[in-house]
């Protein structure tokens, strides 16, 4: 297994974004997936480079009265040379229910609830088995790759906060 160099606090605490109120959750979900897709973290169908589904968990619990709780986990990455930029997303929604609201003069069915999105990011090195097996790979990592780690951490940090800000902007400015 590779070494993870965190850029944000790791999950389960992570970087937190909480929204209590009304939102079109279906649109937000799609927007987040599109962002990851456009930035090379997953393909059109939500699969990562090694054909694994990025959605590792989707649990929907329905209760009496039409409310539901949703838990979603995403784990995705993109490989940049010998470095892997990981992003993890956890979405927890409590007491979500449909609500008809007027938005920009149009009556729409939106979702009211307590939306809690937590995200983390890290840069992973030596994720290939080749790095563990061969002495030359270790040598290469220690003397050549390590110098580039800070640059990759910086890039991953910028990308992560672009994602974070895009979600924040989407929710606050009701872009759905």
């Amino acid at each position: 297994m590779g070494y993870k160099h965190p850029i944000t606090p790791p999950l389960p605490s992570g970087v937190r974004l909480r929204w209590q109120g009304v939102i079109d959750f279906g649109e937000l979900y799609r927007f987040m997936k599109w962002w990851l897709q456009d930035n090379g973290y997953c393909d059109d169908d939500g699969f990562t480079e090694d054909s694994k589904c990025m959605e590792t968990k989707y649990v929907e619990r329905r209760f009496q009265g039409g409310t539901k709780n949703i838990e979603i986990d995403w784990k995705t990455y993109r490989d940049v040379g010998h470095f892997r930029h990981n992003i993890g997303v956890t979405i927890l929604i409590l007491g979500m229910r449909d609500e008809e609201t007027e938005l920009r003069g149009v009556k729409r069915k939106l979702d009211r609830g307590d939306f809690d999105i937590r995200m983390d990011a890290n840069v992973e090195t030596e994720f290939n088995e080749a790095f563990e097996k061969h002495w030359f790979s270790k040598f290469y990592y220690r003397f050549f790759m390590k110098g580039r780690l800070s640059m990759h951490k910086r890039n991953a940090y910028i990308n992560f906060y672009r994602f974070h800000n895009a979600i924040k902007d989407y929710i606050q400015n009701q872009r759905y």
Partner: protein
Amino acid sequence: MAAFGAGKRDDYVTPPSGLVIHHDGFFDVDRFHEELRGWFFKKRYDYIEKEVQIKNKPQGREYVFGMNGEREVDEFFKFHVQFKVFSIRTQKLKEGGYSGWVKLNIKAWIELDWTKRWQKNSWTRFLYYVYVNFIIKDRIIRTYESKLYLEMLEAIGIAKSCMREVYH
């Protein structure tokens, strides 16, 4: 251009995840569809309309188009241009055209050895690797990649001509 291993045959001129254009405002979906299709035919691409989805929602229509074009340059090279259009909150305007939020995703790549003549065994794959990475590498970059890139820019120009701000 990325170095080609034995199995890799796609040479992207855009980032592999594609170029993205966002636009919130006027977008003439009908004209875009018509003109881009015409462009594919004019440039002798085999045009495939992979998917069309239209959903009617209270906030406006939602469009999803997938348009692919592929052109055989010769027995070794094939050009691919792919457009994906997502449009939400699309409402028809009185003066014609539509307004809404649009996202275009454009990918363009060259498929090498599309007939798979060089992929049969490890020896031919090795020859393919040498041929692509040393013998014709310069030709791929200077001739084919630049040609496809310019064609893609032309198609993007058509898409952009169908967009503008909404004037009230």
